[in-house]
């Protein structure tokens, strides 16, 4: 196609094929991107980092041709223009892999890659030429080192594999530049490694990658160059040997921010919940044994698919258990549904904030009072005043940034949404609370607030369990770390033993 031709006539490797010069974009009252310049050479991996609101998405939109910059020029193969169109961006060989994947999980890999562009056969019948379709997808999968075939249904693939399908799709457009928007935020450690390998493979084939991420460790490992944005401005461009975690963080937020372990205020208390020989639906033949104490934060690490979320769902009464038992304060309990778990004082902040944690079409107030609504209905009807009063208290307590507690939760930012989920349970005075990926997809500032809140809860004697795939977070926040591997606990590490190395070994099922 056009891009193949463009590639052959493009300047010899090493010369930038894409240049942004002095690009600026403002929205009413906000300078989203100020005098941004960047050049992309073939086979370069460029990291773009910055807090939410730093201007990353605006940059992506400009590159995708969705938004026109106010000023500046975009040069492709030496031809300057004011703005890209969506088609122009595609023709220039720019492809996006978004954080939320746009795959049809009822179709197979090949169908997804060529959706809307299926090869046809049988003349006027124009039926899909399945053989040709599959044959043309295979080379892309080979290039990515994919362990699945074109006929594998997407629903059977892991998240990283699904991203590979998206990348294969990008390659099928003869892309020269693949933009990965937060690709690792939902990936477990081992899958992240796989993705980084894929990036290295793309680089080797002369395909450039722009890597947008909150997870700085991966940025350090993957990128040749990093551009740090803050409030729309480029605050630093780090070349390969300058790229390091602390420098990026310094530039991003203008303050020191690694996850600093905060020790508990007092020694941990008695066992709050004890899981004994518990078997969940996902691993009906594996037994989980685990104690969570009052006053501690227990990290639960492991690869995605190790059964951590399923354990949380079982503890919260969402999924029935296959066997074994749970003791709360030494008393055996069995929850028929989540309502029973809530009654017993066990709360869950689920991993999928938008689909499970919140009702996006309800207001912040309505979300906060939902689990405990009867308390706000002294007589027959719900008292709006009592609800609003609680919402105001929650807003102050958690510093939820909105002027109106009657706002629809869909219009809050990710960090504030997560605080609303938390507020639901804090209003009910938790004794045992489980966080499943509490900081996924939220910005650095909100993250550290969530960590502080968790520590605050533990210090008031609450038993906290945090499921996380973010190594930095697991090590930086937990008092102890339990690691899951294929449905069972492969080890529990005390604070002193919590190292990346130890956790990784246990996560892949090896002894320390």
């Amino acid at each position: 196609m056009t891009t193949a031709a463009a590639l052959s006539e493009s300047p010899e490797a090493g010369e930038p094929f894409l240049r942004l010069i002095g690009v600026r974009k403002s929205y009413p009252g906000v300078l989203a991107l100020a005098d941004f310049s960047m050049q992309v050479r073939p086979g370069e991996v460029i990291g773009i980092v910055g807090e939410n609101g730093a201007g990353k998405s605006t940059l992506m939109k400009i590159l995708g041709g969705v938004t026109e910059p106010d000023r500046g020029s975009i040069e492709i193969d030496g031809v300057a223009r004011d703005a890209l169109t969506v088609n122009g961006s595609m023709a220039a060989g720019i492809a996006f892999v978004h954080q939320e994947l746009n795959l049809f999980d009822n179709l197979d890999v090949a169908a997804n890659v060529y959706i809307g562009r299926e090869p046809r056969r049988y003349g006027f019948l124009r039926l899909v030429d399945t053989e040709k379709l599959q044959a043309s997808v295979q080379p892309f999968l080979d290039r990515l080192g994919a362990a699945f075939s074109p006929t594998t249904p997407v629903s059977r693939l892991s998240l990283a594999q699904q991203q590979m399908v998206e990348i294969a799709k990008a390659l099928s457009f003869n892309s020269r530049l693949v933009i990965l928007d937060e690709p690792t935020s939902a990936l477990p450690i081992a899958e992240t490694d796989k993705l980084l390998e894929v990036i290295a493979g793309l680089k080797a084939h002369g395909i450039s990658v722009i890597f947008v991420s909150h997870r700085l460790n991966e940025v350090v490992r993957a990128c040749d160059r990093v551009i740090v944005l803050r409030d729309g401005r480029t605050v630093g461009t780090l070349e390969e040997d300058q790229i390091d975690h602390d420098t990026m963080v310094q530039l991003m937020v203008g303050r020191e921010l690694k996850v600093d372990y905060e020790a508990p205020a007092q020694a941990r208390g008695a066992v709050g919940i004890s899981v004994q020989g518990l078997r969940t639906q996902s691993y009906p033949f594996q037994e989980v044994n685990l104690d969570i104490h009052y006053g501690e934060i227990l990290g639960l690490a492991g690869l995605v698919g190790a059964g951590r979320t399923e354990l949380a769902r079982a503890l919260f009464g969402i999924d029935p258990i296959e066997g074994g038992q749970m003791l709360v304060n030494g008393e055996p309990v069995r929850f028929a549904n989540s309502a029973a778990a809530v009654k017993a004082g066990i709360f869950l902040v689920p991993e999928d904030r938008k689909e499970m944690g919140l009702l996006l079409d309800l207001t912040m107030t309505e979300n906060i009072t939902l689990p405990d609504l009867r308390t706000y209905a002294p007589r027959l009807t719900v008292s709006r005043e009592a609800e609003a009063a609680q919402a105001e208290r929650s807003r102050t307590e958690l510093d939820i940034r909105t002027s109106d507690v009657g706002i629809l939760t869909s219009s809050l930012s990710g960090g504030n949404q997560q605080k609303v989920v938390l507020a639901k349970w804090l209003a009910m005075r938790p004794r045992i609370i489980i966080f499943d990926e509490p900081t996924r997809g939220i910005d650095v500032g909100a993250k550290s607030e969530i960590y502080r809140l968790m520590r605050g809860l533990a210090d008031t004697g609450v038993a906290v369990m945090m499921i996380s795939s973010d190594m930095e977070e697991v090590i930086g926040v937990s008092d102890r770390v339990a690691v899951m591997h294929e449905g069972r606990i492969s080890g529990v590490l005390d604070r002193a033993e919590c190292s990346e190395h130890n956790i990784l070994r246990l996560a892949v099922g090896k002894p320390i």
Partner: protein
Amino acid sequence: MLKKDFGLFALIIVVGAVVAIINPRFLSPINIANTANLVGLFGIFAIGQGFVIITGGIELSVGSIIAILGVIFIDLIANQGVPWPLAALAVTAIGVVMGLIHGLLVTKMRLQPFVVTLCGLLIYRGIARFYTHDGTAGFGFGVSFPNLEWLTTGRTDLVSLVTGGAVPTILIPHSFFFMLLLAAVMWVVMHRSVFGRYLFAVGKNEEAARFSGIRTTRVIVAAYIICATLAAIAAIFFAMYTRSILPSGHGSFYELYAIAAAVLGGFSLRGGEGSIVGVVLGVILLQVLQNLVNLLGIPSSLNFAVMGSVILIGVIADQQFKQFQERRRTLEAARLAAAGHHERHEQPAEEPAE
């Protein structure tokens, strides 16, 4: 929500005014009383349908329930000599059980509401016809139940009653008053009670509701019970109104009237949206439209076509209005941002367009 109800109300007034100008009989006491009666009868079960629709479900067996329970009710009081309060209680209890079964099939067996209630539609209709050997169920000559008849088909002139007969107005059928009372109670249930809030939450996102510790199964089953129970009560009213029931046709398509009324009243078939005022106004509009067909000399065979067209136009207008509002809200947000209300964490700065 209120604004939408107001729009529907205005539409009813406009349509009513047009009909009244063309044919003044529209405002005659007899016509008003008749229309009020039909609004009452249809309103009773349409309100029930609303509860199911809010959960994202649908109840297609309403018409068949009205047929089968009407036949049973008449048989009990006319042929079996059961005292009518007992018969009414029995029929209502059967309604509760039907709703319970539908609800359990939908929640515990995870069957689709459409399928469950479609089967209900067929089964109940079939049993109703078998029950009477495909004949008509009715009252023998001279059989009467004064109290029951007063309650269901009696008429009272409220204004006249209040003023001691000084200002005679229109005799309004009791079915209408019953429906109003029911609507008032159900308004509190739907819009003010804990159960009502759960209903909307479950309808919007059942998964998230479950993760908030709501017993979603209970909420959904309760909605089906409310629906079938109100259909059972409506069955009694219809039986007393028609006084004879041919089970092959009695109540057929009524579920569709109810669904149409709910949709007109702003319910979303995806669940989570709707109001009692809306569904009642929807019922009124549908009855006014039927009335319009009769009074304007439009061939009554076009009845459904008129209804369908109005609903379609209404839904399209509503959709357009929503899009207009959406655009306005976006502009408003941009203007607010310009006025310096921007906060970094409140709205990601880079995404004002979303």
